Structure formats: C-alpha cells, structure tokens
C-alpha cells in the first residue's frame, strides 16, 4: 500500500527541547547511533521560551544552599506528592548538569567573583537559579544544539559524514510508537515538509515531547504542545500519572487579546515586582496559606526589607509557589478588583531603575513595548493566569526514566510525571530536563546496547499499515472515515458532515478552559467529559483540503487525536481527586486532604484502540474508540532519612499520623 521510508537507529529521541537534546547527546556519547525527531526546526523548541533560569544548589550566591535545601523546597512546592526519589536525584545532580553546560560553551551571568550568578525565585529558599538575563531557555537550547553540532563535527572528522552517529530529523511528527509484543520496536511518523511517511526501527525510544497546553485556550505554550508524547505513551500501553495537576502560571499577558497567555517571567517578581489590584492594594498578603505562614513576610515593610537584607527579613508573598499566586489573582479578578482587561497589576518600575530593568529583564521590556505599547520601566503590566505546565505525565521509574510496563520506552522532561508532584517550582523545569534527559539517554543506550543485534524487536507490518491509514485518514471524506467497522463509525453514518479541524480545536480549547481550568467543579467536569466525547467523534470526521506538502490543516487534524486523549485524562483524573492540592483546585473540595497525598491517579487506555501495538494485526484505526480509565495507586512511602530533613510540625501538615508513626 502506502509508500513508507524505513531507517534504523539504536536510540530514537522524540522531541528536541532541553530533555530530548540532552538525552540524544548522552546516547551518542555512549556509542549509540541516535536519531532525534522534532516537529520544528532544530533549535526552535519550546524550551527557548523558558526565561527565568535553571535551579541548582551551587551555593554561589548564598553558601548555605545545598541539595537538601533544594529537595525540601521541591517537595513543599509539590505538596509532598512528588516522586521523592526523582526530587532527590534532581536536587543532587542539577549542579553538575549546569557546570557541564559551561564546558560546552554556555555563558551564564556572573557573580562578582566570576562564578555563575544565581537569582531568587518563587518557592526557593535561597537565590538558586543560574540565568542569562531573562533568556535562559534560549541559552540552554543553543548550548545543547551547539554540543550536538560539536559531536557531529567529531563524527565528520572520523567518518566523513556529519550524521553518521547523531542525526536530527527536523520538522517531522511521530504518530505512533511501534511495538513487537510488549517491547518497543520503533516509531512511525511523517515528514511535515513533504508529507512522506517513515518508519524508524529502534529498540529504545525516548519521549521528550513536552506538554499539553494547546488543549487550553489561554496558554503560554506553543503549537507544538499538543500532548504528543503523553498520547503516544498511552497508546503504546504505558500509564500516565498525576494528570489532574496543571500549572497555571500566575503571570501571563492579558492584553491585547492576540497575545493573551504569553508568559511574563517570574523573574519580574524575583527581581522585586509587586502585585496590586485595581484599588492599588498589594493583595498577596491576604493569601498566604497556613502551610507557608512562617516563611513569608506579613507586612509590606518586612517584604521590602528582604530584597536588600534577606537574612533578617522573610520573603515577600509575591514569591509564593505559582499555584498560590495564580489562585490569588483569579480571586481578585473575580471579586471585581481586576484591571480594565481582566488581570491585576504587576509593577517593577517602582523598585528598579529603567537601566536595571532593561539589563535584567530585557526581553520582557521588549515584549511589552512591541506587543502591548507598555513601557515596563515606567508603568505596571497587566497580568493574569495562563496554562503553563503539565505536572502529570508518563509514569517512569525514577532512576532510569523507563516507562512502566513498556520495555524500551523512556520519558524525560515535561512529558514525564512524578518529579514535581502537584506543582512545579519555577526553575525546576530546566534542571529537570537536564537531569532526567541525561538519565533517559543513558538508560536507553544501555538497554539498546544490551540487546542482541540480531534479535531486536521488529514492528509488525500490519501495525505499520494501520499507522499509515490513520495518518492519511483526514484526506478521505467522512464516508470513508465512517466505513470503519466500529459501531460508532456506523452510527456516525455517511450523512455526518465533514469537520474543520480548526473549529474542533477551538471548541476543545474553550471546553478545557471553561470547565477544567484553574478552578474546578464536579458537575462542570462531567459536562466537559460529555463535550469531549462528542468532540472526539467530530475529530474523527475532520477532513483537510490540499495535499500532503507542509499542510497545517492536516497536521492539526492528526494532533487533535493527542489533545483529545490527554484532555480526557485531565478531566477524568480531576473529577476523581476530591481535594485541592497544587495545580488542582476544586471549588467543591477546597481543602487539601492528607489521605489523598498517599494516592496517585494512574490513567490507562482500555477499549479496542488501546491494544494497537500489542501484537500482530493490531489496528490503529480504532484509536478513537479507546477510553481512558483512572485507577488509584498508593504512593511509595518517603525514605526516612529524607523525612528527617523536615521538622515534624511541617510534616504533620502533609502526612497522616500513621505515616509519621
């Protein structure tokens, strides 16, 4: 049937952001022939949007910092739902990962004694974020990109071919993980530019696809964030964990409408920006939750003192973890104390001189001037919450990043779950990418190297054919789509109209924003699930015009499958968790409940489409009929020596009495 190109590698990495590139570098350095596949051009990944910095307890600015303090902050930020082992590894290894970047050419901002400078950020006890102005993500991506090039230059010197050991396949989308029995056998995808289909045979696949923000209307995420890796894992039989936890970043732009959601870096607050409502009141003092009461300033004087004398003052409440600040802003706006465009004011002009602002926050200055006609050196910004980060993701083994239940599948970065618990601290994302990107690349390389080359799993032809049919389906009319032998397809009937993928996408974003957004209610989420079911049926009838060459309508029609699957996970898990914690706030269950801390919610696929990849003849066509089911899984008890890092009084806020013994 369809023409499908075929290649073979030892390790395939899906995604070329921070985690993907770090994984690919590691796999190649371990001697594996490695391919990186990314939807955009090389070097354009969403990681470039990260502004603030990389959290690592190097102790360059405050010598009291160390991995234990970082671990504690991370667990507090995640309200103790984190996979503690991941939080431990992350805190221990982050400094090495940052220093390594310097040996690859990164140029961070410096301290007076020439070390890497570190800045304050929400939830971090000490100045901890290595940074370059407010464009740290760009520095990270460029450094990793240039390291990839440097390895390619080494390979060129040796083999005469830049791509003999490390190849970047840019502007390609992966639509399926291929399996042989339970094991990973490779990936199926298409080249966006030409529409050509391809298979890469590989025994080890690392997912590093980032997040899911494009399922929401107001988001800081780029078009790439369609939950691809989350969906690929689910479809390959790997469960997802913590999908109810979505971080709404407190400060996104709110005006003009076309830029609504674009990120305003937390560094603005770290460097002294304050939040005020329309009455001019610095409202964050009213929103310090009990668990954080001892750590944050109670008055403006005390808060202001902290910027110059942190040893003798407590932190300003603007620097509470993101979930707290986002909820506070939401409440102020709801109470009618919002700005003309429905946000609150964020003002840094009263604390820093125009020169300092331009030096420390150059891209914010530029962004507001160019896009909103606002000069942040002289006037406040208007900001409001925006969907920013998915805490949930592939359920991985903390040490190896291996997806549970699918040998050969790994996940790192935002697509992996567990590390951040119910809420991620700013700065912990870039360090997460590096620490677990490296670990995933390392494990994938070891796994691939250990396999007998002659006995590598090979994807079944029927599965490849099914994946090809699935990818090309949007070019067929709804008649053909409905002709699948599924009851729903038949019920859809030949009369059902063709759908515009853009329309379906817009409706999906509206549903998630309105019904499964920052504040959630049971009946609304039930309604969301009904709407999602109907959207899924309509997405099955999405039809695109034109041809396969760089056709954005087609690309969107394919991405819709992933966004719908992931949205269903979010809504189902959120409905199940009857408490409020971190990035999951229930109006009908406003309190955090210690017994829920012991429970992780695991999403899996059931139904006909769930088995695609499970064996010969599996049919990807029926993916749309798979259903998400949620089960509860007890969390591993936290290791005793790690618990000892906290005061018992604090632990009592999170852990049940039995757990504390």
């Amino acid at each position: 049937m369809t023409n499908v190109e075929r290649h073979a590698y030892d390790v395939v990495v899906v995604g070329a952001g921070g985690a993907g590139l770090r994984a690919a570098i590691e796999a190649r350095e371990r001697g594996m022939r490695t391919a990186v596949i990314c939807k955009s051009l090389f070097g354009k990944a969403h990681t470039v949007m990260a502004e603030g910095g990389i959290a690592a307890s190097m102790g360059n600015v405050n010598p009291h910092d160390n991995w234990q303090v970082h671990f504690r902050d991370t667990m507090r930020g995640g309200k103790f739902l984190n996979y503690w082992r991941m939080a431990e590894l992350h805190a221990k290894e982050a400094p090495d990962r940052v220093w390594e970047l310097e040996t690859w050419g990164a140029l961070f901002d410096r301290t007076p004694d020439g070390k890497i400078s570190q800045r304050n950020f929400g939830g971090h006890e000490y100045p901890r974020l290595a940074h370059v102005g407010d464009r740290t993500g760009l520095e990270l991506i460029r450094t990793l990109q240039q390291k990839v090039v440097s390895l390619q230059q080494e390979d060129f010197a040796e083999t005469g071919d830049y791509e003999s050991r490390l190849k970047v396949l840019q502007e390609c989308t992966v639509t399926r993980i291929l399996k042989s029995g339970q094991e990973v056998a490779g990936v199926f995808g298409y080249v966006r530019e030409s529409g050509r289909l391809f298979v890469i045979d590989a025994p080890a696949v690392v997912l590093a696809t980032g997040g899911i923000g494009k399922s929401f209307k107001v988001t800081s995420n780029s078009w790439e964030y369609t939950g691809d890796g989350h969906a690929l894992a689910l479809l390959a039989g790997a469960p997802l964990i913590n999908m109810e936890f979505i971080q709404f970043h407190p400060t996104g732009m709110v005006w003009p409408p076309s830029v609504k959601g674009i990120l305003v870096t937390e560094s603005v607050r770290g460097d002294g920006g304050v939040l005020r409502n329309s009455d001019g009141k610095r409202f964050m003092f009213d929103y310090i939750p009990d668990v954080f009461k001892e750590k944050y300033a109670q008055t403006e004087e005390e808060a202001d003192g902290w910027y110059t004398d942190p040893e003798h003052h407590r932190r300003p409440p603007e620097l509470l973890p993101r979930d707290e600040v986002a909820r506070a802003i939401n409440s102020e706006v709801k109470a009618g104390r919002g700005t003309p465009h429905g946000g609150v004011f964020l003002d840094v002009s009263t604390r820093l001189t125009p020169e300092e602002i331009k030096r420390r926050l150059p891209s914010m200055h530029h962004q507001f001037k160019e896009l909103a006609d606002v000069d942040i050196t002289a006037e406040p910004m208007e900001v409001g919450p925006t969907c920013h980060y998915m805490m949930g993701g592939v359920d991985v083994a903390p040490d190896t990043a291996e997806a549970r239940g699918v040998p050969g599948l790994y996940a790192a970065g935002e697509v992996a779950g567990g590390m951040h618990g119910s809420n991620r601290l700013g700065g912990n994302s870039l360090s997460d990418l590096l620490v677990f990107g490296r670990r995933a690349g390392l494990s994938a390389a070891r796994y691939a190297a250990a396999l007998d080359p002659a006995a590598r799993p090979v994807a079944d032809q029927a599965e490849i054919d099914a994946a090809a049919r699935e990818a090309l389906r949007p070019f067929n009319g709804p008649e053909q789509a409905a002709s699948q032998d599924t009851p729903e397809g038949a019920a859809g009937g030949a009369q059902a109209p063709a759908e515009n993928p853009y329309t379906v996408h817009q409706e999906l974003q509206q549903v998630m924003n309105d019904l499964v957004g920052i504040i959630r209610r049971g009946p609304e989420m039930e309604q969301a699930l009904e709407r999602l079911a109907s959207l899924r049926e309509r997405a099955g009838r999405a039809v695109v015009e034109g041809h396969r060459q760089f056709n954005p309508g087609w690309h969107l029609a394919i991405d819709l499958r992933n966004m719908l699957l992931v949205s269903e996970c979010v809504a189902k898990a959120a409905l199940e968790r009857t408490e409020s914690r971190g990035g999951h706030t229930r109006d009908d269950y406003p309190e955090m409940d210690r017994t829920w801390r012991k429970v992780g919610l695991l999403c899996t696929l059931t139904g006909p489409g769930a088995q695609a990849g499970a064996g010969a003849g599996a049919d990807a066509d029926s993916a749309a009929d798979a259903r998400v089911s949620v089960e509860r899984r007890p969390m591993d008890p936290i290791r005793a020596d790690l618990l000892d890092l906290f005061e018992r009084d604090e632990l009592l806020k999170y852990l049940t009495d039995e757990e504390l013994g």
Partner: protein
Amino acid sequence: MTSYEAHFKVWRGDAEGGDLRDYQVEVNDGEVVLDIVHRLQATQAPDLAVRWNCKAGKCGSCSAEVNGRPRLMCMTRMSVFTRDETVTVTPMRTFPVVRDLVTDVSLNYTKAREVPSFVPPEGVAPGEYRMAQVDVERSQEFRKCIECFLCQNTCHVVRDHDENKPAFSGPRFLMRIAELDMHPLDAAADHGLTRATSAQDDHGLGYCNITKCCTEVCPEQIKITDNALIPLKERAADRKYDPLVWLGSRIRRRGQ
C-alpha cells in the same frame, strides 16, 4: 475593541512557482501579521503553509517579508499599517521556497556545522570556570541571536547572489565566530586555530563590506556589524600584519 477588514496579498506556491493571492480578512485591536495569517488558515486557506512557534519573538521561526521588509511576523503589529494599506506577505527571498511562506533554510544549518565548536580550556574542571561579567557580556550579546536568519536573508552578498553562498557564511555565522573568539575561556588558539583568521580565510569575512543591512533587520537588535564583524575584521587584519601570513592567505584564496 475595533475591527476592520484588511486587504492582504500572500504569496502562494512552491518550488515550481507561485503568485500573490488576494484576501480580505478581519483585523482586531493589537493583532500582529501572524494573527492574520492564522485567521486565513482557520477561515479561508487551511493549507496555507507558515512556520511559527512562540508568537513572542523568541524562537525565530516566523521570518518573512512584509511589504518587502524582512521581519518576524509575530512582532509586526498591524497598527504600523494604515487601514487601507495592502499588506503583502512573501517568503524570505534568499532561501529556496518549500511552500507558501516556508523556505528551505538548511543552508544555515550547513554553515553552522562549518564553524569549529567551543574548545574547553584544558585542566579547568567543570564548576571551576571563572569569568568576569564584563568579559562575558560581549559574547552574550551575540548569544541573544534567535536564529531567525533575517540577517542572512538580507545581506546583499548572498541575496540574489547564489554564487557567493558556498564561500560566505553570512552575518549570523561570522558573528558566531566572533562570539567564540571573544569567549574568555575558548582554547581554540591552543590547538592552532585562530578564529579571526579562519573567518577571513574559510568563512568569507572579506566579502562583507560593512553596509550594516544585517544589523538593521535584526529583531534582537544585536549590533552585528559594529560589535562582531568590524572587530573580527580588525583582529584578522592584525594577524595578517605579518606579510608572509598575509601573502599565504591571499594565495589560498585565489586557489579556491
């Protein structure tokens, strides 16, 4: 909020050829050209090909020419045009068209590979790097580059001169050489590589006659010519003060 209908002309076609198509399309307060292109996709031209990512001027994907000026579509406010002005959007001219507004920018990735990478100093362990802020700032300016390739597209050495492409790395990658040359700890020289001389000999720095057109279009406002190319030329010239070295490089260039 006010909105109006704008007249757009967008180049549609592929490597075989194409033409400008007319569209009437709604424009709202505060929108940028990329918003309008997206509206065209959603309502009139679902297969209109365009690259973009961040929509905030940070990724450098959405480069094109708007009314003949090389720009990022996501940072071009509609308010810079009058309501009755026709807005013409065409792909970057220096690179081959793939489809519609998408061009084949692979030349840039080829050039990037030809620049020798950062060479870490021997005997300095990770974590032991010490550099002063003033010393890293010069290179940091160049590392603001978002690789939009607008400077590459604009430079007259290669714009409409395909024949110069093999020998000339272009402002973005000459600037990359300057960046490494100014890196306080780059140890390339210890391994016999003089970056400035190599810029001249291997990357076509001599083609640049400092017209500053690249600087003018840089959305990151990097002073490419003043801060990277001219100092690099001066450094290369210093190295070439030795008449023998100078002669040697002349002969090599002729031999190319």
